[in-house]
Each structure stands twice: as C-alpha cells, then as structure tokens.
C-alpha cells in the first residue's frame, strides 16, 4: 500500500495505491469553521451539490450517468470534528481494469467536480425543483427523529448537559431553520463556501495515481489558498454535581441516557482500550455484563465517547421500574473502573477486540481512506502502525483514563401512560 501526497496551492491530493480491492473510492472534502447560524444552510447546500448541477439538472440524470459507470455511486455527507465542519463528496466506483470503456476513469473522476463546481443556479437562485425536493426531504428527516425514542432521549440529555456547544446542534437544523432558507440564500452561501473552504481530495484504489491526479487537476478549478486553522478539541466544564431529569414520553419502553464529560485525553490508546472494555461490541463489555447478562434489564446498552467533543453517553432501553437499578449499575461500572476493578482477562479481551477491529479496518476501503484523513487532521497513527501501541496499554493506563470520565447528567424518557410497567 503506497501513501502519497500531491501538494497543489489551492488543494492537496492524498492517494493510497493498492491492488487489494476491485473498487475505488474518492472523497472530496471541503472544510470550514463551525458556525451555529449556518448549520441548516450548510447542510442543505451539501445535499444540493450532490443532487443536481447544470450538467445533470435532475437527480434522475445523475443516477442514469452512474448506471452507465457500472453502478458507481455519488453522494455527500456532512460531519463535524470539534469546531470544524467537513462537507464530504464521495464517489465509489469499479477499478478501471474491470471496465471496457477507454475513457471510463476520466468520466468517473470528473463527475463529482462537474457537480460541485457547476451548481444548478439560475438568476442567482438554486433551481426551484431541486430546492423543493431537498427541502421536503430534510424536513421529513427532522420529523422522523420525533418517531425515534433513542434519538429523542440522547439528544435531550446532551442538550441539558452542554447547552451552547456544537454537539448540541443537529446536523440538519430545526424546521424553523429550514423554513428560513431561500433559493437565493443557497446561491449566496455557495459563493462564500467555495471560496473559503479548505479543499482536500483523498483517493484509494488500484489506479495509476499520476494519471488520476492529472485528471483531478484538469477538473478541480479552484484558485484560492485557504487558512487551515481549526479548533478540533472542545473542552467542557467538569462539575461534581450530577443533574437528573425524568421526562414524560409516549413510547412503550423507557429510555435512559447517562451523559458525561471526558477530560483532556492524552493517551489515545488507553482511551480506546477503556471504551472497548466498558462498552465494546459483543456481550462481554462491563456495561453489557452488568445490565443485560447479569440482570436482564435491557436488550442492548451502548457507550459512545467522542474525544474531540470531550463527552460521552451511555444509552439503554429499559422497563421503567428498573430505572434506579440501571442507573446504579452504570455508575458502579465507572466507579469500578476508577478503582481498577477489572481483570487481566477483561483487559486482554478489550485489547484483542481492538487489534481485531484495526485489522478489519485494513480490509475496508472506507476505513483506510478515513484513517488517512484522520492521520492528516488529528495526527492519528495509520492503522498499520497501531498494533504495538494497543498491545502496550497497561492496567494503570486504563485506570488513569477512567478517572477522566465524569458523569454529568442522568436523563430518563419515561414510557407512555398506557403501557410501561407490566
């Protein structure tokens, strides 16, 4: 596997050449500073640019083109790391050696640039048909969230915990935010967006990378140099008080979220081992053992820790009458970890699981490319360089990391009146 960086003034191209896969993947990443007031329009634009362009005005036109390219796929997403937003445009496509057409590679590489750099604007407004379709879809996404008790519970618990921090903002924005967006606003936002974003292109596959880079240079006609300086790690205040909320809900099952602050993490490998040990996949984690296996309180319990947001949460769906017991068991898991009450076997299993998932990542085109991106942005090690560092994590390292987890909020979304406790 050959990693290479091609530096250009307005953008950089990062390539991984490998013959391990039949498919290839290219990601065009436009990065900018998180701004609370632009969340909705920024997300809208990300959707709009993957949906329509002057070259392919209707989504149907894009899909027909993708079919021709052996079922290639082109889509976008938007994510946040700390106070940086990444607007990602991805193309997954078949390696050219499986295709008959001579110009296949250029056709597939140029497609996302044609979409991104020729947005479907007329008279300084976003194309109204596409605008309406995307608007309806995004509003529906917001409304669908109301149907999801897990999302409702975790979102409210995080809101209560972190108030005005970026983690509180939803990816799409609210219905009111969406109502404020106009076709002209999308046009205006794009003008600023395309000038001010930092642009990177990442590509992996069995490709002649010099040839690929030439094609990118031909179609990626950006001409500005950008300031690449973002705050990627958010810190949160640590308090000794744990706030408890019990809120009425409408669902059959009660949902419990326990949210907390993670203090500055300096040992990323001990942090990962801690997460694997406490809330890893399978049923062997501390939380699964305590809540599901030993007490049958839930079907599943999950732990999500985000180093860059300095926060974590635990979630499970439970019978409401078991609420206090579940909270007590969750608190106890964190307490036991701080006291070093975990066995060598549990530590070894957590490390084995991490080593295994690292190796799995090396078989995944998506994870390899994402890892290269995180290597550049967060200085994370490449997957291939992580093995000995995982193995070297000690009991004391994990014990020390566990002291950085501070519970802050307990949030219960109660079950509805007519069902619940039986």
């Amino acid at each position, binding site marked *: 596997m050959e990693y290479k960086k091609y530096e250009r003034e307005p953008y950089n191209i990062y390539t991984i050449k490998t*013959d*391990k*896969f*039949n*498919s290839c993947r290219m990601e065009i990443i436009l990065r900018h500073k998180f701004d609370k007031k632009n969340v909705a329009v920024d997300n809208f634009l990300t959707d709009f640019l993957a949906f329509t362009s002057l070259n392919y005005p*209707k*989504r*149907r036109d894009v*899909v*027909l083109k*993708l*079919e*021709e*390219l*052996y*079922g290639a796929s082109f889509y976008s997403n938007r994510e946040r790391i700390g106070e940086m937003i990444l607007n990602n445009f991805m193309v*997954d496509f*078949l390696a050219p050696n*499986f295709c008959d057409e001579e110009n296949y590679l250029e056709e597939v590489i140029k497609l996302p640039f044609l979409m991104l750099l020729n947005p479907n604007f007329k008279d300084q407004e976003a194309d109204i*048909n596409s605008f*309406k*379709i995307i608007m*309806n*879809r995004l509003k*529906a996404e917001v*409304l*669908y969230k*109301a*149907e999801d*008790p897990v999302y409702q519970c975790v979102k409210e618990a995080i809101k209560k915990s972190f108030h005005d921090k970026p983690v509180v903002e939803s990816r799409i924005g609210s219905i009111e935010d969406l109502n404020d967006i106009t076709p002209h606003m999308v046009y205006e936002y794009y003008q600023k967006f395309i000038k001010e974003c930092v642009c990177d292109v990442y590509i992996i596959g069995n490709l002649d990378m010099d040839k690929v880079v030439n094609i990118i240079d031909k179609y990626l006609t950006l001409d500005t140099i950008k300031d690449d300086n973002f705050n990627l790690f958010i810190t949160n205040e640590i308090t000794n008080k744990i706030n408890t909320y019990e809120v009425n809900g*409408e*669902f*059959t*099952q009660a949902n419990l979220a326990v949210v907390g602050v993670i203090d500055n993490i300096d040992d990323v490998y001990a942090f990962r081992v801690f997460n694997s040990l406490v809330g890893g*996949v*399978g*049923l*062997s984690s501390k939380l699964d053992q305590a809540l*599901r*296996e030993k007490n*049958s*309180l*839930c*079907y599943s319990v999950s732990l999500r820790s985000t180093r860059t947001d300095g926060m974590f949460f635990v979630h499970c*769906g*439970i*019978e409401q009458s078991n609420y206090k017991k579940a909270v007590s068991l969750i608190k106890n898991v964190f307490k036991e970890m701080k006291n070093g009450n975990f066995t060598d*076997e549990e530590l*070894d*299993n957590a490390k*084995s*699981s991490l*080593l*295994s998932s690292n*190796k*799995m990542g*090396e*078989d995944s*085109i998506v994870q390899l490319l994402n890892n290269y991106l995180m290597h550049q942005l967060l200085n994370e090690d490449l997957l291939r360089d992580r093995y000995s560092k995982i193995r070297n994590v000690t009991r004391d390292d994990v014990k020390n990391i566990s002291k950085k987890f501070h519970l802050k909020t307990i949030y219960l979304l109660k079950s*509805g009146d007519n069902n619940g406790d039986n």
Partner: protein
Amino acid sequence: MEIINFNKADEEFFYDVCDNGMPVYLWVNNKGNNFYATLNVKFGSVDTEFKVGNEKKWTVIPNGVAHFLEHIKFNMEDGTNAFDKFAKLGSNPNAFTTFDFTCYEVFGNSDLEENLKLLIDYVTGFYLTDELLEKERGIILEEVKMGEDNNNSKFYFESNKAIFKNNKRKYEIAGTVNDVKKIKKDDIIKAFNTFYQPNNMFMVVTGNFNPYQVMALINEEMNKWNIKEKKIVRKSVKEDCKVVLEEKEVYGKCVEIPKFNVSYKIDRNLFKEYKNEELNIYFSIILGCNFGATSLFKEELLERELIIGLNYNINIVNDVILLSIKGSSKYPKEVVKLIKDKMQDLSVEESRIKAILKMLWGNIIWGFDDVEYVNSMVQSQIVSYNKFLNDIYSLYKNINYKDVNAIIDKIDLTNCSVIYLMNEKK
C-alpha cells in the same frame, strides 16, 4: 471437493458436503485479512407446526421460538457463553433469525480454526436451565418492546398481516410480548431436537485460508456431533392470492408523515416458464424503471411535492409473488391512487435494460471486496433458490426486452392490499 468457477469474475468457490450431510461453501480471498463464517439452520419463525421422524401428531410451538432458541444457544454447558469465548479470540460473533432461517456468524481475522471449532461447538451443543430461560426471556421482552416503538418495523408486520391469510409471515419474527411469555422450556428443546441437524443446515466461510484444511476441520468438528438424521415434515401452508384486507390504516407513535404500502399479490403460476432468480431480475427492472430513482413518475411526484420518498420491493413466497410500492407522503391516499394508475401502465425502454444489467454486474464485482457481502450472497441464494448461482453473468445476459414486456403483460393487478401508517389517535 468441487471447485466452482464464478463465471466471468475470475473467482473460485469450493463446495463439499460433510460426512454427516451438511453442505459447505467456501470462498477464498487471498488479498484480505478477514474471515466471515456463517452456520445456518433452516429453521425460521414460520416453522411452528411440524412432525419429526415417525411422529403422527403435529407439534405446534408458539410464535417466536426460533428467535428464543437463537438467544439460548450462546449459553454453554461450562457456565460460560460463546460471546466470552469469541472475545478471547478477538472475534465478533452474532446471530439473527428471519422468517426462513437462523444464522450464527463470526467475523474475525485471526485463528480461523479456533473460531470455526467454537462456532460449530456452540451451535450444535445445547444447554438450557430454568434460570437461563428466564434470563433470556427478560432480555427478549425488552427487544420486543424496542420493536414496538419502531414505526417501520410495526408498519412492516402490520402490512404482512393485511396480505397473508395463512402464511406465518403475518406474525412477528420474535413474537409478541404475550408469545414470548408463553414459550416453555419444552418448546425450545423440541425445536432444537427437530431442526438442528446437519441435513437441515449449511455453512459458508469466506476469507483468506486454505480451503482444503478448512473443509477437513469442519468435517472433523461436525463428526463429533453425535446425531441421528431425522426426517422433518413442515406443515404445508396454502396461500392463495386473495389479500386479507384491501385497505387498512394502522397507527404508530409520533408519526408526522404518513407512510403507505401498496402490495399486489400475484399467482406465481402465471410465470411458470421463469425461474425465481430470473423473475427477481425482471421485476427489479420493471419496478425500478417505473418507481425507482430513474423513473419519470417518481421524479414528477417529487417535483409536485406529493411524496417524500418512494421505493419498491419484490418478494416471491412459495406460490405467490408480492410486488410492493412503498413511500411516505402527506397525501398518501392521492399518491396511492396515482400508483395504482401507474401499475396499469408499466413500461420499460429497451435501452435501459443494458445499463441496469451493467450496473448490477458492477455491483457483483465490487462485492468481492467484502467477505461479508460474498457470504451473504451465497447464504441468500441457498435460502431463496436452494442452490448457489455461480453463473450470474449468463443470467444477466439472457435478460431481454421481449420477456420484460411479456412479464408486464402477465402481471395480474386484481389482488391488492393498501396499508397506511398514520399517527396514533389520542
């Protein structure tokens, strides 16, 4: 061992049958680290009435036993569970139950031999105490309630209830809260003793390994299972094309945008000259061109702001074919009317067929990047078609415009069920 060439894809599969009768499919991927192994039992949620051996009387078990048994299986006789043992190997085990089969799987990248031994050991072994039964019952009840709070899952099963009169697909796979409470230890023991036998199982292993060594190991491990082959007779269920309800509204919690499902129940015998695998491709092309991302009809409904989303599904269940068009809309009744009109006027442009088949073939080729994809492909073929399709290329090549139109002409729209998911009335 038989070597099966996957036509035009430069891939080889290996096939053999264990001494005790269990078929095994292997695919070797020399480029990767990972392996994926599935041990599959042809025992699904629909198998609730059966006879085994020379039994005269039908055994009837409650709904949800196949799923309950799947949960029980992870507990092992030495007081540990299979999850703990796989954790030591750094692997990810899991299991799931469908209408038609139960799958036990493990995903990992080191010590394949130990993983396979463990997989076979815990699936073929059986250990159940009263205490374990109640522990799993508690967990399953929470799982069922989780499903009750999921509108999509609720809508799916409610749709099935309106479509199927006799077929057990009308019941939830895990059962209801009441079903789960009714399940007894004896039901689970009976189900295990009936369905968990080599001739009712198959194994698929995909990854980087020596196929001959792996096959020898599987055979050796299966030989340790002291089991006598028994004949299983499932009570046959006749399902005619009449739907149970032509129109029904069901209610979910916090439904802001209604959903609809228009399902046509069609006699499979109308298409006798086609195999199921051919019919699936033809119907995919027909419904894709008329209701999918490239259809003008869908585009128009989106632009007129009549729908939020629209998709389709094809399901061949024994003697009936189900063609379903589903979506979400603020005006579901108006949209359903338009869908019904469109179904009377289906068409496919000839030029589209080649492009769609090119796309489908591209998807197969890049599926070979993923041990899980390949494993699932073999698994679903065995379950759906009772055979491994190694020549999908020829299957695609034989798809033609004339037959597309012949099939469109034969679609019988008489039996239709329309289900709406609306917000729960307060």
